[in-house]
């Protein structure tokens, strides 16, 4: 039982990281109607920024995260402006997708060039040891708890921002009807930029948590969590923010428990099989909206 609880809590923690990454996917998809496959690599860049400022410059972990979030925000805005915006509207959605894959490889190879392929051992941004329950039988690591709390704060803050501020409302308006929003005076380009900025800023936070839990940083660190977070976003219903959160948590828990009870090697296969099954039963994902065909 305690064993189950340990894996369950670890699953929630891993799922929280997936959820934060999935928020970036789902927001960008909801507003720009594109899949930003380079999102996972923004996490990796963010982690390298944190590594550099913590280990090389010896800065405070919290300050390092702030620097990384700022760096990723700029990176997100720049990639959108340079790579995706020129393709918006005119080209087919396939062109943007391929470009995103290109950006992903570009970022990976840039990191390879700058930081080399040698894994960097990341020191955790969380120095707290965690808590012991049930007389030391059940240990929960500090980083696990911090991850869960952080993701809850991020979700609540994001929901409040979208519901309560005019920039957030502009995002909803653009995601519903870009044309009508523009005709009501909403600057669509600025709104899309802001979405990329927020998604990429969150990626930096996800990077910090991810590398604190799995302290092995390479240029490919972001790829697999990126794909899994994408699966989480689709599972929850792409475009839906609560959906991303639920999808992420489910995925993390399933992965963690299947590692324990079924097989470590098979856990990824199980995760992706679940995606296929969910899509067969509910093509729009758990919380996704049904798309109504216009007659």
């Amino acid at each position, binding site marked *: 039982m305690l064993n189950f609880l340990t894996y369950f809590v670890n699953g929630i923690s891993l799922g929280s990281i997936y959820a934060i990454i999935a928020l970036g996917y789902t927001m960008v998809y909801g507003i720009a109607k594109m899949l930003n496959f380079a999102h996972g690599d923004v996490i990796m860049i963010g982690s390298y920024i944190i590594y550099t400022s913590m280990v090389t410059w010896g800065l405070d972990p919290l300050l390092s995260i702030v620097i990384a979030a700022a760096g990723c925000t700029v990176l997100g805005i720049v990639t959108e402006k340079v790579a995706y915006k020129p393709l918006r509207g005119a080209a087919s959605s396939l062109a943007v997708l391929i470009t995103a894959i290109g950006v992903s490889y570009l970022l990976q190879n840039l990191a390879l060039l700058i930081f080399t392929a040698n894994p960097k051992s990341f020191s955790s941004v969380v120095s707290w040891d965690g808590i012991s329950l049930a007389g030391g039988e059940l240990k929960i690591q500090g980083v696990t708890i911090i991850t869960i709390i952080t993701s809850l704060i991020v979700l609540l803050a994001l929901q409040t*921002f979208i519901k*309560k*501020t*005019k*920039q*957030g*409302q*502009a995002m*909803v*308006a653009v995601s*519903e*009807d870009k*044309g*009508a*929003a*523009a*005709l*009501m*005076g*909403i*600057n*669509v380009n600025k709104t899309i930029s*802001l979405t990329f900025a927020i998604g990429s800023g969150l990626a930096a936070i996800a990077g910090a948590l991810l590398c604190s839990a799995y302290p092995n940083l390479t240029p490919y660190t972001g790829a697999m969590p990126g794909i899994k977070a994408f699966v989480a976003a689709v599972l929850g219903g792409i475009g839906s923010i609560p959906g991303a959160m639920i999808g992420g948590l489910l995925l993390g828990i399933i992965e963690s428990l299947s590692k324990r009870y079924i097989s470590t090697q098979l856990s990824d296969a199980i995760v992706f099989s679940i995606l296929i099954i969910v899509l067969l039963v509910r093509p729009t994902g758990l919380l996704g909206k049904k798309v109504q065909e216009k007659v």
Partner: protein
Amino acid sequence: MCAMLSVNNLSISFGGLRAVDDFNIEIEKGELYGLIGPNGAGKTTVFNLLTGVYRPDEGRIFLEDRNITGLDTVEINKAGIARTFQNIRLFKDLSVLDNVKIGLHNIFTYPTISGILRLSSYFRIEKEMDERALELLKVFDLEKEKDSFAKNLPYGKQRKLEIARALATGPKLLLLDEPAAGMNPNETGELMDTIRFVRDEFDMTILLIEHDMKLVSGICEKLSVLNFGSVLSRGKTSEVLNDPEVIAAYLG
């Protein structure tokens, strides 16, 4: 004193089809002007040209003395043209109040950061936006529904909300695309009162597309008739509606 809207020789083609051909119009401040014509005549295309959704191949558009030809939709909205849509395009998952607030975005601004950090300017401006939006909702008798989703409003109220949202952007010229489409005679009668009220209360110039001849002859002072992309007839409503060419185009 120049006209509120003057359009000279506006044309656009899609592929081989000349959707709008040498379109001219002149609307004085405060006028209620109707644009009519058979289906597919190019009326909505004219609206899309006026609001910058399409760029014209030829011709020029002046709003008062400002040349707005080729500006993008956001700039044209800022310059003072707002519109509604033939098939209602409200933000369905936003509340009635928030739909109107979207229209206020250009008038009320605060930096993103003050929204994130909840600085005092955020609270002040949001409160002002709420008040202004509520005033508009009151005018259209929608304040009771302010918190319901736009998609849950009955059809007639959705039409009204679209007009309220367009007015929120602070236009000089309001374009209404088939405002009476799908309405029963009672609702149409009420809509006619609303449109007159908007013109008088907001000192608005209005250009509307409509098929309902009762509405057109009831409230429009002047008309232009469009057929196959070009202007068939224009002038005072009573004269245009008795023009044999217009009758021929309508009745075939």
